[in-house]
């Protein structure tokens, strides 16, 4: 048995060999898909969407109605002197370590420019 060229016999031989080879290679029992559960569809219910829309509408309503309501509350109000007095603010508590510090750079020297010497002579900086 030989396959030197594509003669009909050699074709038959190699074809038989390949068929037998692949028959042996293929799975004896082909698995069947077990899809008992439905595909994992992400069910989008309308409820959360409705809820978020309602929350958004309520927020907008409060935002718009709030200033109107508050401005109506203080119609006809005139500030008194006592109000200004009582509005004074004094920090009475102990100093906290988180107290705000003045971080603006301070000049090292604030007096008039000092003279300096060049080769023994005193010269002004200007």
């Amino acid at each position, binding site marked *: *048995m030989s396959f030197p060229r*594509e003669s009909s016999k050699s074709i038959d*031989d*190699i074809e038989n*060999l390949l068929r037998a080879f692949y028959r042996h290679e293929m799975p004896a029992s082909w698995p*069947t898909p077990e*899809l008992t559960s439905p595909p994992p569809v992400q069910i989008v219910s309308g409820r959360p969407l409705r809820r978020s829309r309602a929350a958004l509408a309520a927020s907008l309503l409060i935002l718009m109605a709030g200033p109107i309501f508050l401005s109506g509350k203080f119609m006809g109000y005139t500030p008194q002197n006592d109000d200004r007095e009582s509005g004074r603010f004094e920090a009475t508590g102990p100093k906290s370590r988180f107290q705000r510090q003045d971080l603006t750079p301070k000049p090292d020297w604030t007096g008039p420019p000092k003279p300096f010497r060049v080769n023994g002579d005193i010269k002004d900086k200007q």
Partner: protein
Amino acid sequence: MDSHPPRKLRHAEFEALYRRHSREVWAIAYARYLNADVALDVAQEAFLRLWKHYGDGGEIVNPRAWLFRVARNLVEDHAKSAFHRNGTHPPELMNAVRAPSELPLDGLERREVSVQVKQELAELSERDREILTLRYALEYSPNDIAAILETTVTAVHMRLSRARQRLAERLLARGVAHYP
């Protein structure tokens, strides 16, 4: 508004696709790696991904081409990971033993021939192996193969003839004349 088909229809469509194309996907995967078990795993995984894709509401115009692409990618990934595990030689070329239950003495010769055939198939191009697998594992006609692989019938005939001749010469040189 839900424009997806009902799930029952999806299920039926999926099962039809599985019946029609699962062996083809196996053949494509097998042609790449020459490992029947890996090919079966890859085919299963490809269909599982198709199922998930349907579950996510995805639409596929050409499921067969989609499955082949996924299978080829999966086998490629497997080949890369197998390289890290085993080096340059796939394990089935080093050792043809597939399972302890398949080790009767009368099967040893067949296994030996299997290894030799696989070694020669591995020398062919992947496209040639795909054509041979579709032709001799699934008994597809050259016309069907050309349609699946999106090539011409003439090219399939030419590749088949060349691959057969090459295999015949090499197997004869190894003393392999028939499959036991």
